[in-house]
């Protein structure tokens, strides 16, 4: 992502809502894409993206201008996404457990995905553990260098290397299984 004018960031931190709106508009596309990939749900990504920018607004005064602003925004987005995943997992635990003893209303969400290939890639991503998935999205979708991903995620560069390798192995295995299954039909 492009870096913004530091003056714009300072103005927003001082309460200039017009400046802050420019920041939101500069990053909203990429933050939403990141969340969309990480969470695998377009509606949830929109909700969490809004939360990300509200968190960003609250924490702007604490931004140290030595750091890279885009990485900082990604860090906030990543933390908000992890919070959302924790909530989703809690909900799933409760719902799955409850479903064993009660009839539900059957309402389920939809992420609105279409197309077989897209479903396949979404499924492969969704099958990854959270730590691998966030790394893949930052490296593959946004092309961030490992050092920057390391900063966003908060683990050493060596861990990013091994995560990318493991993620590729897993996603390839998933894709092959899907192809084989399709071939058998």
């Amino acid at each position, binding site marked *: 992502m492009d870096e913004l004018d530091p003056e714009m960031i300072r103005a927003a931190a001082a309460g200039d809502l017009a400046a802050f709106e420019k920041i939101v508009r500069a990053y909203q596309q990429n933050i939403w894409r990141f969340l969309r990939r990480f969470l695998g749900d377009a509606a949830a990504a929109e909700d969490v993206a809004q939360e990300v920018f509200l968190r960003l607004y609250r924490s702007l005064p604490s931004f140290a201008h030595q750091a890279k602003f885009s990485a900082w925004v990604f860090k906030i987005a990543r933390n908000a996404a992890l919070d959302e995943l924790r909530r989703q997992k809690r909900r799933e*635990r409760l719902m799955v457990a*409850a479903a064993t003893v009660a009839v539900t209303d059957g309402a389920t969400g939809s992420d609105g995905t279409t197309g077989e290939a897209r479903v396949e890639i979404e499924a492969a991503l969704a099958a990854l553990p959270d730590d691998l998935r966030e790394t893949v999205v930052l490296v593959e979708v946004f092309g961030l260098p490992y050092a920057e991903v390391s900063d966003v995620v908060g683990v050493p560069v060596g861990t990013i*290397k091994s995560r990318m*390798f493991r993620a590729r192995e897993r996603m390839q295995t998933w894709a092959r299984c899907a192809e084989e299954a399709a071939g058998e039909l």
Partner: protein
Amino acid sequence: MSCDATRLAVSLRCDGELPDGPELDELDAHLAGCDECRRFERDAARLRARLRLEPVDEAPDIAAGVMAVLQASTAEAPTSPDRVTRQRARRRPAASGTAGPTLVTPGRRPRRPLVAAAVAAVAGIVAGATFVGIGRTPQSPAAADIPSEVVAAQREVRSVDAHFEVSESDEPGTRTGRLAYEAPETLALSVEGGNTLVVDRDAWWQQTRRECSPVAGRVSCPESIARWVTSVTGREPFSASAPIPLELVTPVDSFALAATPGGTGLGVRTIVGHRAVGVTVTAAQVAPFLSGLGEAAALRPVYPADPVEMWLDADHLVPLVVEVRAADDAWRPRWAAAQGVVDRPGDTIVSFEVTSLRVNRPVAGDAFDPPRGRPDATVDGGFRATRTTIAPEPSRLPEGFRPQRSGTVTAPGGPRVGVRSWSDGRAWLTVRATEGWRGGRLFGDLGPDVRPIDLGPAGQGYVSADGRSVALHGDGIDVVVGGSLAPSQLQDVAADLGIVGRVVPPSWSEAASGTLSGTVQAVPGLLAPRGLDGFGSAAVRSDGQTVSLVYAGPGDRGFTLVQDPATSQLAPSGAGDAVGVTVRGVPGRYSYEQGQLEWVEDGTSRALRSPSLTLGELLAIAEGLAPE
């Protein structure tokens, strides 16, 4: 070069992270001769192409929503996370400084005690036994999960804005209300035609309706006394005397000790667009929630054994629906008559239902405005924020906890108390300390029954029966740790304060407290509950040969087992309502009014006492007693 090393190098090269060097030649040489590794490289490229080129949905316009929220909530500069609070602080009424620290809330309908329980069948049919972890039917896994999920979820709740409706069987119609909350200590609760409570960190207001009581010589009541506003300034962090009803946000106290039983699962449903999970509990268990709601709604009395359906938002565990029904219970009509209410079994007597809910979204700043006009009574709680305080700081805090208010509390005639506080979302933690304590009992109001615990290098600690406070009696300093965390976490904090706790002096009432194992050795023949779930560990007290085991549960639930090997006969009953029951195969008696089940077994008199459990539950506990 092995296949694993090759694929790792391929992965790095793919991302532009493989430095130039002789390894590149080795890599290419391996790839030239290995089909599987070439396939790995080819598939990696395909995956990248799909991930980067796959069109995703058009990004929505996030900015419009964000800016609308920000413009609605505040126009101030984001110079501090508590900017809204500081803006409101300027509007606080000045402290009069004339009143003492004790709070009086004129006009508030006093919360009536949840009196002695009763149950349908005197013969011991355990109608209420499903709420005790003995002899119960298997719980739904969802219900079993709720206690731990509630405690965990509180840390993720930063704000709540909810509108709700509340109705009661003895009041016509439905009243609307609103709950607004910003972590950790800012909350506004109001109910139509009822009270308004606003808590804003160190300030607290309650506006109540004041019924007029003409005194001699006064012909009529002036209209201006129809409302009464009490204001508290200098409120101590997370003060118990100027309470903030956090149970409405996340019902931690109602579930913290519920352990795995939790109640009976009701399944799932969608409430105002939120997935909700339901559980059946008792009114005694959710007493903290009802008490919190009662701060604004002045609720009618409920019977401890009344069944309650509680539905919680599955994401944040915020209560969405709470429905209290009248229990079908032989003793309940007499209880109701004493309370001046008439209920039919199964009637819904109190209903709370959220009609809109927003969690972790900014709350409009005016939601926390204090009641208009000059307060009718102002109380100074005595707290002042100070840079330094005698309250020690733990060397380690639970992850995510950040410092909140700290300072000193001074009250006329009372000790000088240092306070520190921390929070993470709705979860909170305080350390209070005083020097030169001469209270003759543990500092910190732990209650009459405490549990001594070994804190290792931190020496002797004492835990309240409900596990929510941990006290240390140190050299020249007395400290108490409190909070909404699990008891084990509070004990960890107490152990990290750098204070070595000593055993309390023999003259202090807590000196009669002991451990269960130590007491059993000193007093043979004692029985203790086995396989008990949904209650904390016992606080043990010995008074000569009489031993009391006190068990606290979630909310107001709890019981005491009293055993006296020196008494082999039941004393004459002072209760006029005692009835005969069979307990563990021997004759016993039960008083509904006193909530006490008594019997003599093996030459020892034994009694189970509880103001909140039913006879059925006490009989179930009695059946589970065994030598320790």
